[in-house]
């Protein structure tokens, strides 16, 4: 069985899809595209499609990953086109490679996030980020299915920078300033998400954006701990399998 690894984006209004919504959409797209997906054995066979670390509902992403098992060998670039054509616009397939050795999930060591905060005060944001970074630990609380849970949001954050830009959506009044946070966050247990970092900023400096943040995952991949840079998780696959061309997105390095 050949395994194909897929990088896809969830964009625009489709950022409101949940992980379950996406898995249904992918299953149907695979069937429509006629991709020879393998099925599990047993009474209720399931297509062999697995997902690595899905972005939360409401969060956009340029770097989501899944793996498809197929019964007959497929050309990755053809699958990229077919699958992309079968998925609704907004779920966009960016890159497909044939799987090399090793699992995909363990290569996704960290994520780079962009958080847009329309209408927030850039100066306050700068102060909050400084305070957050200089703190040894920032205990935040999140409501999980098992009730409230406290954990440190600081340690996982390898980089956090503030800049100013213009907003691009909804909540944004034209011409209004927009604070942009960029962060590289290591994948840990429990997972630290951008909203946990925002909770941390509120905690250390009472920094609270006026409207819900717009969050996008820009990249996931192996982490260079020294520089905080992320490599393309498909590099290893491309080195070891045929058709080792870089995908259309190329390399993405954090920062």
């Amino acid at each position, binding site marked *: 069985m050949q395994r194909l690894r897929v990088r896809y984006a969830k964009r625009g209004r489709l950022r409101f899809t949940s992980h379950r919504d996406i898995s249904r959409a992918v299953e149907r797209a695979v069937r429509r595209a006629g991709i020879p997906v393998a099925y599990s054995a047993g*009474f209720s066979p399931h297509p062999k499609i697995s997902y690595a670390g899905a972005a939360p509902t409401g969060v956009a992403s340029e770097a989501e990953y899944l793996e498809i098992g197929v019964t007959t060998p497929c050309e990755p670039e053809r699958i990229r086109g077919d699958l992309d054509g079968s998925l609704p616009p907004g779920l966009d397939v960016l890159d497909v490679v044939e799987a090399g050795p090793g699992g995909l999930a363990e290569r996704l060591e960290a994520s780079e996030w962009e958080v847009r905060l329309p209408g927030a005060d850039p100066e306050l944001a700068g102060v909050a980020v400084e305070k957050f970074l200089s703190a040894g630990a920032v205990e935040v609380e999140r409501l999980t299915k098992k009730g409230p849970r406290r954990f440190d949001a600081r340690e996982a954050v390898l980089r956090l920078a503030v800049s100013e830009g213009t907003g691009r959506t909804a909540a944004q009044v034209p011409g209004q300033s927009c604070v942009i946070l960029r962060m590289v966050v290591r994948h840990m247990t429990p997972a630290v998400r951008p909203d946990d970092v925002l909770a941390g900023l509120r905690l250390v400096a009472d920094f609270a954006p006026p409207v819900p943040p717009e969050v996008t995952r820009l990249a996931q991949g192996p982490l260079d701990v020294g520089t905080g840079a992320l490599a393309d998780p498909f590099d290893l696959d491309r080195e070891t399998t045929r058709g080792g061309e870089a995908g259309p997105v190329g390399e993405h390095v954090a920062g």
Partner: protein
Amino acid sequence: MPVESIFHRLEALLPKVQKPIQYVGGELNSTVKDWDDADVRWALMYPDAYEVGLPNQGVAILYEILNELPATLAERTYAVWPDLEALMRAEGVPQFTVDAHRPVRAFDVLGVSFSTELGYTNMLTALDLAGIPMLAVERGDDDPIVLAGGHAAFNPEPIADFLDAAVLGDGEQIAIAITEVIREWKAEGRPGGRDELLMRLAESGGVYVPKFYDVDYHPDGRIKRVAPNRADVPWRVHKHTVMDLDEWPYPKKPLVPLAETVHERFSVEIFRGCTRGCRFCQAGMITRPVRERSITTIGAMVDNGIKESGFNEVGLLSLSSADHSEIADVAKGLADRYEGTNTSLSLPSTRVDAFNIDLANEFSRNGRRSGLTFAPEGGSERMRKVINKMVTEEDLIRTVTTAYSQGWRQVKLYFMCGLPTETDEDVLGIADLAKKVIKAGREITGSRDIRCTVSIGGFVPKPHTPFQWAGQADHETVDRRLKALRDSLRGDKEYGRAIGYRYHDGKPSIVEGLLSRGDRRVGAVIRAVWEDGGRFDGWSEHFSYERWMAAAEKAGVDVDWYTTREREENEVLPWDHLDAGLDREWLWQDWQEAVSGGEVEDCRWTPCYDCGVCPTMGTEIQIGPTGRKLLPLTVV
């Protein structure tokens, strides 16, 4: 005037609500057209949550047909949950369509499809959020025509004050006809305003415009007469019947949602109508005559639907799917065709007989034999005669034991409680039946690993059925019988643990009964309930019986008079001016025969018994067999 998307305003609210994906649209096969390229624009509403409304066939078919018309645009809108409703009110965001997020008030028509009366309050929420005056008489030329369709529209009187118009029966052709009337009227420069448009629709005889009819009452509250208040408005409005379903093979491009919905499958209606003559069944009465899709059209629709949607389940829909004249060939043909493709087939709504086990076996050829469902509806043979559900106890037990012996582990049996002439013994008969089923099943399989689930709900008499005159059982009686049945099942040491029991209590049925057989005076109750916060009445967590009763009292409406009171033969019923094709005398005669235990055969196979539909409507039964078979498809 350009109409702009409100999506940017909605988007800011979405992070704060449950399941935001249901409001964003973007479904596969959905259509967004340029506003200015269309001169007639429909907003189609299913008045329940998106997860229930999206799979609805009626809305999906009309959406596709209207969007295929030149210079015509159709978009969809659904009931928003209270969390989003509150935010929309706070931020002034209007009711919107999910396709292009256009404000509903900007459309020419708001067409609302009512499968059930319990969606009425949700329509009021939508009107209010849209900024459309709730009462039809208060609407101006800038407001859409608010039009009701669906089964509940066969008695739209309780919501008559909120509607501009209603349509009875199949929507395909009349939706196109209405579109052309509106197009012409707009092209002429909207002469005579809204009133003339409604007159043009009413004059056709195919659209009911409630405000052109006056209702007079007797001093005792009964209706004296319903009469047109303008010349050229017909005395009776007739239902629409599409003949030759093969010419209308919709949906061709099934909507595939991103959000999870109640039916995750591609559905093909294999026939419309049913002539089994079950006396409680409104759907069976108002959709006559039977019109089959041919085996070849069914095969082509399934093939196309799977390719277009990517669904892995196909449902063959109808009111009694095993009655299709070529169902065995359909089942075998599809099972052959999709063998080994992980595509499953389902056949809802089947009768109780051995033939259906063969069908079910065919459909589950490669899968698991988990559960089968049958609907005997009545617990005793006497009861089943009253409702004309002709299944003997022997038939039932033989069918169910056949199922067990062929590997099916679980059988679900549907019943109703509160049927006309029902006694406590009739309901307790359900327990005996279930025990006999388990006993026979254990004997034939030699195993104790078989189960049976009894599922039971309250009966609601419906307009245009022989039971339209019946007194509805009060909720105390229904609840007492349901409890006695539960005790009888649970208390049984030998079989009790093999029998599951699911029931709905009697109170919601009383509200459904009030809305089903209500007249225009019930509108005040609906409005009062809505003003008191009533929403999503079909959902037990939102439904409040107390709220409905308080509203009825406030409006001076006697709920018992509308529900538990038996009507006399000559009483004018609120829907008598709406023609479902059924001969009123035949319905009355059938009601009398019900009480005396007389049976009616299915007119597909026995001579016509003069229900009146075919001659009145100019229709006829359309059934096979065509003698054709499904050819296997070649793999691409």
